[in-house]
């Protein structure tokens, strides 16, 4: 089963486009070629919905063994991987710091290969950070699989993944692909009135302490973006 790192990167001095370009063109190819780590996603946080300016990067490891091999081969970077270390140094002009989450996917979350094979993709991703009631993560994931995935599918949303944090108890992340801004508008409008959505939210209240959603977007290529 795959393992993921999801990073939120705090951007400084209008450097979001340059930072994303560096990850897309240089960091990700090096990380894949040298360490076999796949770029699972690269997004900017959409202002109006959450923190900004912010970039988001998601890395996919084949399994825990691969995670260990790649980490062992990479840290400390100045000793083990001078090229990534140089890119890290260059990125200092555009980012200050970040927060990473080490994530384990639920059994029904497609990995990168399955997503590519089945065409599961989208330019927008709705992120849901969840904290379950104590000990309820497995039950919550079961409910997502049996109840929410069919509902989301009927509304045109595709599950990228539902993950539990590998270390932090009762915390997790859900990622949903959206096909367009028009679809996002329709979904958020119908969130307010759809009885099935209301029923799911009632159900979520049995399982969750909290949930917070926002949108991240795959920006077009080209560095001259904020």
């Amino acid at each position: 089963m795959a393992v993921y790192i999801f990073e939120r990167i705090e951007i400084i001095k209008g450097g979001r486009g340059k930072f994303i370009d560096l990850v897309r063109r240089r960091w990700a190819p090096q990380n894949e070629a040298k360490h076999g780590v796949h770029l699972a996603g690269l997004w900017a946080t959409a202002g109006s919905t959450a923190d900004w300016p912010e970039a988001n990067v998601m890395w996919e490891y084949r399994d825990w063994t691969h995670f260990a091999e790649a980490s062992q081969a990479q840290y400390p970077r100045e000793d083990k991987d001078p090229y990534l270390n140089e890119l890290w140094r260059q990125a200092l002009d555009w980012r200050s710091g970040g927060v990473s989450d080490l994530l384990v996917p639920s059994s029904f979350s497609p990995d990168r290969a399955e997503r590519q094979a089945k065409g599961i993709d989208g330019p927008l991703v709705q992120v849901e950070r969840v904290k379950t009631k104590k000990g309820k993560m497995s039950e919550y994931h079961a409910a997502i699989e049996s109840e929410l995935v069919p509902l989301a599918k009927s509304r045109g949303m595709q599950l990228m993944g539902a993950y539990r944090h590998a270390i932090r108890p009762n915390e997790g992340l859900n990622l949903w692909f959206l096909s367009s801004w028009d679809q996002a508008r329709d979904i958020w409008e119908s969130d307010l009135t759809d009885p099935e959505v209301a029923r799911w939210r009632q159900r979520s209240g049995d399982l969750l302490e909290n949930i917070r959603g926002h949108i991240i977007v795959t920006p077009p290529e080209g560095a001259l973006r904020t």
Partner: protein
Amino acid sequence: MTTIHLHEVMDIAPGLEEPYMASVLSLEDDQVSRNIAEGLEERWKRPSTSRFRTTDVSGRWPKVVNLADEGSFETLMGSLRRQFSGAGLAADMEDWWQRNTSLRTHGYDRLLIPSSFTPSRAELVEQGLKGRVFLHEFVRVPWGETQSYMSALERDFLPVASRYQWMLFGAYTIAMDPREILTVFFMREWVHMANLLGARESDADVKRWFDFREQTIDESEEMVLMPGHNNDLFVWG
């Protein structure tokens, strides 16, 4: 006399973690000189700090974590009097502080009280133990449950951790914060950390511990750390 450790989490100017840790080491030379001059008890003469920095694997970064070797509330009071009470102000520390404002912007300190099963750093060094990766985790438990969490950690998890070659650096309660606990485990190789985290569904003992954590912990905040190059526990090569 109660043994305590000073624990600091610093917000570091990005990319300057190692220079800051080297600077902390230089401060300790000043402290050694002062302690000897003041005739402090032999065991407190040579302060030394374990210095760590964040990876970008999990948790907030970039940070540097300092965890001072054991001291006492009495030695702490001496330090605080020098810094804040005007008597015998430490000019060397003031100078050091001002020289490092370009390396760090902010910090959050805690006073740690080690559990009875926490080894001293000297013991770890004497045994030749080292680690490439340290899992540093604050957990917040319900009121009145810190000691029962500590007991469960010692009784239920340490034997499991040992099987996976996780070594205990320390387990601590926090002065003035009755709900918080810090645990720090270290692993010689990254695979040791991965093997335990990956065994949640395959090893009943690991699952039992993770289930207990899910039922018990209200909040937690982890950092996956590397020792600084000038940390005795750093693995070269």
